[in-house]
């Protein structure tokens, strides 16, 4: 119990430290707000292009701004959870902080969660801001009648994307990818997710093979369910995704089940690979930057 308490205290300390570092860049807060605002604005103007046109967002209602804002929100979460673990590991390695953490009695878990906190304070509130700006300035409308279900979906998305992020982070030590570019993250984030997550368009506009490719990422199911639930006029029953068409379960239920499966596989696998990488590095003497 004492060790757990100590780890928890250290986690709080890491969080404070990350906040101090984040807020030490004076312009950061302003740029952060403006960045979220202008990102939302771009898509509002895009929505003006589509205004009056017959755009098929079925079964996700008819409000393209809301459609986009939800896509943007999931993008921010993915950017943090999936995209950030590898650069964070690299940062603490090259900054000499990994030596410090590995010398301390902290578990492998605490420093990793601690350094991710900067990403969390940087990106998670953007989700709220994007929803806010969308609603206040750009005509997005939301149905929060199924808030509980939406939070469950969001939680599963967080877990599953973080699991993939940890798989990516593990490659730093496991496969010795100490360069800036990391193939797992590149393949998932820059190719599969960019094309098939459906941040800015419904998956149904893609050719069928790409729709099938999109079946392998949690974003597809999270966005499908969140859009049905949150966008007014969203249809809860019509099946549009490839897996929904072959499995006879109500779409949102199936989305939750698949996200849960992905979470249960991705996170333990990611942690296992990360720890495996650390142990390999300890064997080879490559754990820290200085030999």
């Amino acid at each position, binding site marked *: 119990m004492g060790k757990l308490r100590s780890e928890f205290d*250290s986690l709080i300390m890491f969080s404070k430290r990350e906040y101090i*570092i984040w807020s030490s860049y004076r312009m950061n807060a302003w740029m952060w707000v403006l960045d979220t605002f202008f990102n939302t604005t771009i898509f509002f103007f895009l929505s003006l292009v589509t205004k009056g046109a017959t755009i098929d967002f079925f079964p996700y209602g008819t409000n393209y701004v809301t459609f986009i804002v939800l896509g943007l929100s999931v993008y921010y979460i993915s950017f943090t959870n999936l995209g950030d673990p590898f650069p964070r590991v690299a940062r603490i390695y090259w900054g000499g902080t990994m030596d410090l953490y590995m010398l301390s009695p902290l578990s492998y878990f605490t420093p990793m969660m601690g350094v991710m906190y900067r990403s969390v304070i940087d990106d998670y509130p953007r989700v709220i801001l994007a929803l806010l700006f969308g609603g206040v300035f750009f005509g997005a409308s939301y149905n929060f009648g199924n808030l509980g279900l939406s939070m469950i979906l969001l939680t599963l998305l967080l877990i599953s994307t973080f699991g993939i992020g940890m798989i990516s982070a593990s490659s730093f030590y496991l496969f010795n990818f100490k360069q800036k570019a990391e193939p797992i993250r590149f393949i998932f984030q820059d190719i599969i997710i960019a094309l098939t997550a459906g941040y800015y368009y419904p998956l149904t506009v893609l050719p069928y093979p790409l729709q099938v490719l999109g079946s392998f990422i949690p974003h597809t199911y999270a966005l499908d369910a969140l859009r049905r639930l949150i966008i007014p006029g969203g249809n809860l029953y019509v099946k549009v995704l490839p897996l929904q068409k072959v499995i006879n379960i109500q779409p949102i239920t199936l989305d939750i089940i698949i996200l849960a499966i992905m979470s249960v596989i991705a996170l333990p696998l990611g942690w296992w690979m990360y720890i495996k990488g650390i142990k390999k590095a*300890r064997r080879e003497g490559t754990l820290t930057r200085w030999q």
Partner: protein
Amino acid sequence: MIKKIIEIKNINKKYKGFDFNKSERGVGLWIKNIFQLTSNKADSTLALKDITFSISEGEIFGIYGSNGAGKTTLIKILSGLLNPDSGSININGSSKNYDIKNSISYISTNGWMGLEWQLTVRENLILYGDIFGMKSKLLNKRSDEILELIGMSENKNKNISQLSAGMRQKLTIARGLLIDKPVMYLDEPSVSLDVNSARDLRHIVKTYTKKNNKTAIITSHVPADLAICNRIMFLSKGEIIALETKEKLYEPYKNRKVLDMKCLYFKDEYLEVIKNFESVLTATADFSKNSKDYIEIKAVIKNDKKLVTEIMDMLLDKNVIILNMNVKDVSIKEIYEYYVVDKETRD
């Protein structure tokens, strides 16, 4: 009976390399890389061989060796950063990694390990103490005490980026003293420090360990750092070649001096002539090709002025031009070289 706080038995470590056929290229090599899952593209390297020693509580223990001798590998194994291939480590009564980490304070100046550039001196100390599980109240009190001890109280609100290299070094050392563990490892502690600061540091380490019954291991190339050690261990090519008190290590060098010369037109057969002088213990010459025109010769000799004249006469007879000649006290470097040569001779 003095307690043995560190016990190391039969530690071996080999950095596994490819050991591949050097004519292999391309896909074959790539596949071997993936399946061997090793980061080391060089041949395998024996880093440590059958290392066995123990350290008593309250002792200041020095480790000296040339580059690549295995000092850092040994320290990393002792601190849990590196796993040995075989052997056992017992620190403060436990061989579990968690307990070992809880018993040691590692002070290394490599890259000013983990200093946060956006935080102040005091904030860095607090962060470090937090990571090592110190409670807030104690941490705040101790941070101020340690800053006072190392003479950095005035700088406590300065950002790391505003500090000089020497001050960052001091802060790194302060962190190690802060967490108050039974064992301290100091890896090249006086690098970047000026003479006065280095002297102050040695004084702090000596009094701190004595007052608080702490054990310290120092690895250093600076003879003065090792002068405060109770015992010194020499490592060469991953093996222990000597482990004695300072007095016993210096014993063969009682009444000896070091003759340093820089010469032009010096040939290797002249070195044998120097070695044959009765009062010469060892003699070495650096014939490696470099930008210098002269050859550096070093001989450990009896404290005999007549001998120096004889060697000079011999060299002048052979038309060697002596650019510089100096007789000085024997340092740890020469003693180490003697033990290395002695071991090689025995092998």
